[in-house]
C-alpha cells in the first residue's frame, strides 16, 4: 500500500488496492473453470518405471532353476530384518533355500536386499497394490515370491560364473582359466 518513491493520493492508493485485489480474484476465478490436473487413482493408474521399488520377487536363471543360493546376504542387509530363510545343499552340490520368507508388513522397500544379492535372485518390482487389513496375509512364503523368469536380467546365471560347476568340470566357468597343473609351474 505504501509507496516509498512517490507519495500517491489516497484515492489513487485505494484504486490500486482494489485493482490488485480484483486481479487476484480474477486469477482464482479463471482457475475455477480450468481443466483439473488430478489423476484419479483407482480409475487411472500410471505405469511406474521398471526400477521403482515395491513387491519383492525371487527370480529364476535361464535354465529355469532358482537363482537364490541362500547366502543370507539379503537377510543381513535388510535394515528391518524382514527376510528370513533356511539354506540347504542339494544333492548336486548346488545351494538353495529350503524355505524363504519375506514379511511385507515390515518391509520398507529400500532395495538393499536387491543390491546385496550376488545372484540377482531377489528383485523389487513396481507392483505395489497388495495391502491387506490382516497383517499375517502380508507374510509371503517362497512359493508366493518365486516367478518363472529372470526379472530385470534374463541372461545372468550365477553358476556359469562361480560356485559349483553345473556343466563341465573345473575351469568351465565363463572367464575362468583352465586349472593350472601345479607341477608345471614349479620354480
Amino acid at each position, binding site marked *: 500500500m505504501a509507496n516509498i518513491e512517490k507519495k500517491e493520493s489516497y484515492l489513487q492508493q485505494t484504486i490500486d488496492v482494489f485493482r490488485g*485485489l480484483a486481479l487476484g480474484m480474477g486469477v482464482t476465478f479463471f*482457475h475455477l473453470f480450468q481443466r*483439473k490436473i488430478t489423476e484419479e487413482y483407482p480409475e487411472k493408474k500410471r505405469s511406474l518405471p521398471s526400477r521403482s521399488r515395491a513387491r519383492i520377487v525371487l527370480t529364476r536363471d535361464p535354465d529355469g532353476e532358482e537363482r537364490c543360493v541362500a547366502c543370507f546376504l539379503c537377510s543381513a542387509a535388510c535394515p528391518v530384518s524382514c527376510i528370513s530363510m533356511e539354506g540347504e545343499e542339494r544333492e548336486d552340490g548346488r545351494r538353495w533355500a529350503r524355505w524363504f520368507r519375506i514379511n511385507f508388513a515390515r518391509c520398507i522397500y529400500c532395495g538393499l536386499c536387491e543390491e546385496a544379492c550376488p545372484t540377482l535372485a531377489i528383485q523389487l518390482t513396481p507392483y505395489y497394490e497388495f495391502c491387506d487389513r490382516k497383517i499375517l496375509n502380508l507374510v509371503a512364503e517362497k512359493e508366493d515370491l518365486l516367478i518363472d523368469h529372470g526379472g530385470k536380467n534374463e541372461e545372468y546365471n550365477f553358476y556359469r560364473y562361480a560356485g559349483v560347476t553345473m556343466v563341465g568340470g573345473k575351469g568351465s566357468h565363463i572367464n575362468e582359466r583352465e586349472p593350472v597343473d601345479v607341477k608345471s609351474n614349479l620354480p
Partner: protein
Amino acid sequence: MSFMLGMIVLLAKLGLVLVGLFLGAGWLTLGERRLLGWIQIRLGPNRAGPWGLLQPLADIVKLLTKEDVIPEGADRLIFLYAPAFVAVTALLIFAVVPFADTWTVMGTRIPMVISDLNVGLLFALALSSLGVYGVALGGWASNSKFSLLGGIRATAQMISYELSLGLSLVPVVMLAGSFSLVDIVQAQAKYPFILVQPVAFVIFFISAVAEVKRIPFDLPEAENELVAGYHTEYSGMRFGLYFLGEYVTMVVLSALVAVFFLGGWRGPLLPSFVWFFMKVTAMVFIFIWFRATFPRFRYDQLMHLGWKVLIPAALLNIVATGGLLLMVKG
C-alpha cells in the same frame, strides 16, 4: 387454541431453521473443500457417495468416534463448554433474520422469521460480539500457549472489527428508519441498499470476513504460527463444534449481508425463499473465493486496516449519508 397453533408454527419454523442451518453448515464444508480444490486446479473430495456428497456424514462419524482429549491443567468446565458457546451464539443470530416473504395460509399471516425483534440488528451485533467469548475462553482454558495466543488475537480482532461492522450498518438503519430486520427488508422494496451504500457494503463484508475469522483475517487460528490457534487442544466433536460454529457464522453473516444490502428475500419471478437462498449462497461463495485468493494479514496490518481505514471510512460514510438524507428529505 390460537396459542397452541402459534406454538406449533413457531416450533416448525425453529426446526426448519435449525435443520437448515446445520445441514447448510455441514454441506458447506464439502462445498468449500470442492471449490477450493477446483480453484487450485484439483478435484477436491469426490469419493464418498456421488460427487462426494456423503463426505460431511463421514466427517461427522469420524469426529464423533474420536477420543475427546482434555489436556492436563485445562480448566475443565470452561474447556468443555466453550465450543458450544461459539455454535450457540452463531445459531441464535438467525432468530431475527427473515428468510422468506410472509406466508398467508387460510387467512393467517405467518411471518417467515422466528422473532421480529424491533432491535433485531442490535441483537445480531450483540450476539456476534458474544461469540468471541467462546473462542477466547476456549483458548485460555486449554492451558496451551498457542491456544492462548489465538484467543488473545481473536479478542483483539473482534473488538476492532465489531466497531466497523456496527458503524457500517448505521447508514442502513438511517435509510430504513428501523432496527428490525423485517423492516429493513421492507425498506428495500424499490431497490437494494447496495446501490446507494456500496461503501457500507464493502466495509460490512470485510468486517464480516474478519468476524468469521477466515482468510485473510484468520489470525486467531493462523496454522503456520499457532498450530491451530484457539482450537489447538480440541479434538473430536468439540473441535467439530468450533467448525460448525464457524460455518454457521459464515452462513448467518451471509444472510445478514443479504438482508442489509441485497434486499433480503426480495426478487422477481422466483419464490422469496429461493431468492434468499441464492443471495446467501452467492455471499458464501465470495467468502470461499476470498479464502482461495488472499494471503493472511500480519497482526499489525490487521489492526491498521481495522482502526485506521475501515472505522474512519465507516464514520465518513455515516456523515455523508446523514447529510444527503437531510438534503433530500429535509
